[in-house]
């Protein structure tokens, strides 16, 4: 561990008095006295009483120095670096998910560029998968690409945390409102959306881990994954987890630290550690889920690039374009009725953009749109 003393005035002055107070309270300090501009907190450790003077107003002229005095006492009572304590004070109102990746052949604290980018994107997708599962009545095995207003709002609030020491560590911070009522009511009041999502990330990842372990032992049992869908497991979640493993599929570990300002004393959150051999299982599970369970109500926009009909009646076409809500270019196959097929032929000839709604399902390497409806030429709307 690097022991550091913080002297950066701006960093010190940036912490508001409320954060300092929440941190002290969450670490079992008690108030002895309030006098003018300061609050005197005390804590007994190993029979010795320590004092921490917390400034009450950030307008004090010596505010930064007083925060530094506070940090130095905490560094002694907690026996850790002032930098870590300052970081914890800054995040006292945040639920933090940390992913520790173990990419081989890298110096500690480093990861390849591609793997690093993929890790951040996968962590984002993990949060989205959990947020979606919390925001709907019935969690689905395959989540739609379009994000609801609740999910989008949460995404705007979640932050990437500062990089930490160790084999490459990334984290996301989710601000949660502090609990104001006494802990007597801890179990009774419903948790806010942000907190429920934070818990769902952990619980769904652990459910996926348990399912993967079960599937390793009993290969015939991909039903374990389907059974874990109510807990928040989805193809999207599994794909995000695989992404955290990088190109070469390295092990990684996910941990959750709840905001000290809103503790849940009844639960522990031991880290969930995925091994290399979990990753192919997750990949198979994601594929199975996508094949068995369609993504309902998807809208495809694109150009007709292929027509195939033998005889009269229904025919098969391929649309090259994108699924609404997802940027990736895809080729989507579908069977159309006589009437729609004629429209498709016209679109193909005129190179017009078409739009169609249906249920997306993966079969082998191809993406199919079943139950197509509202097939039409969009006339340049896209």
């Amino acid at each position, binding site marked *: 561990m690097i022991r550091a003393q913080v002297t950066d005035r701006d960093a010190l002055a940036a912490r508001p008095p409320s954060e300092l107070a929440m941190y002290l309270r969450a670490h079992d300090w008690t108030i002895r006295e309030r006098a003018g501009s300061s609050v005197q907190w005390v804590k007994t450790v190993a029979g010795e009483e320590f004092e921490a003077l917390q400034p009450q107003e950030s307008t004090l002229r*010596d505010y930064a120095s007083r925060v530094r005095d506070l940090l130095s006492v905490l560094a002694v009572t907690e026996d850790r670096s002032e930098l870590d304590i300052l970081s914890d004070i800054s995040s006292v109102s945040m639920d933090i998910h940390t992913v520790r990746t173990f990419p081989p052949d890298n110096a500690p604290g480093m990861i390849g560029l591609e793997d690093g980018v993929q890790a951040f994107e996968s962590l984002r997708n993990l949060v989205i998968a959990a947020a979606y599962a919390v925001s709907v009545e019935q969690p689905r095995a395959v989540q739609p690409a379009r994000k609801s207003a609740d999910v989008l709002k949460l995404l705007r609030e979640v932050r990437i945390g500062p990089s930490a020491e160790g084999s490459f560590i990334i984290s996301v911070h989710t601000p949660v409102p502090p609990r104001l009522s006494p802990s007597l009511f801890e179990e009774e009041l419903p948790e806010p959306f942000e907190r429920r999502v934070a818990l769902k990330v952990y619980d769904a990842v652990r459910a996926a881990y348990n399912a993967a372990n079960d599937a390793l032992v009993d290969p015939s049992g991909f039903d374990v994954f389907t059974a874990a869908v109510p807990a928040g497991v989805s193809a999207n979640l599994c794909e995000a987890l695989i992404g955290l493993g990088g190109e070469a599929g390295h092990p990684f570990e996910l941990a959750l630290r709840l905001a000290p300002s809103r503790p849940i004393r009844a639960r522990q959150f031991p880290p969930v550690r995925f091994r290399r051999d979990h990753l192919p299982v997750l990949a198979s599970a994601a594929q199975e889920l996508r094949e068995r369970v369609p993504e309902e109500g998807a809208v495809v926009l694109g150009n007709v690039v292929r027509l195939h009909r033998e005889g009269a009646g229904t025919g098969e076409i391929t649309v090259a374009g994108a699924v609404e809500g997802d940027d990736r270019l895809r080729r989507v196959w579908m069977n159309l009725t006589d009437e729609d097929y004629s429209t498709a032929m016209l679109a193909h000839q005129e190179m017009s953009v078409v739009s169609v709604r249906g249920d997306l399902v993966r079969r082998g390497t191809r993406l199919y749109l079943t139950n197509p409806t509202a097939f039409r030429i969009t006339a340049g709307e896209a």
Partner: protein
Amino acid sequence: MNKNVHQGLHGEGFIYALACAGGFTTSRMNLDLDGVDLQIAHPGPRGTTRSPKIEVQVKSSSAPQVKDGQIHQSLKVGHFNQLAGAGFQVPRFLSVVIVPTTPEEYAVCTDEHMRLSTAAYWLSLTDHETCQAGRKIPRA
């Protein structure tokens, strides 16, 4: 060693010795960052401090201007403003240490005692306002 630096060290050492004799811990602060040189406090467990505390800016002078029983000490505006006025949680004081003109006289040791010279005076500037231009301040 630069004469001013030597003089400044002795001035701080003088205050430090006084604080230790009084049973207080002294921590060095950074004048440019904090506006004070020393923090003097009650000792707490494991090297921490406890209240009450004060912070002190230390000036030393070998040839003080004395008029009508008062020491006139001039301060740079910046240093003055770091002491003047209200709004500090830990009270700040100016300390002027009068020191001998020759460094050999700073600390004289015999078998009987060590004599640190010469005398230190303190002043609170809480009731003064911060200012723009250079000025002299009367001292008791």
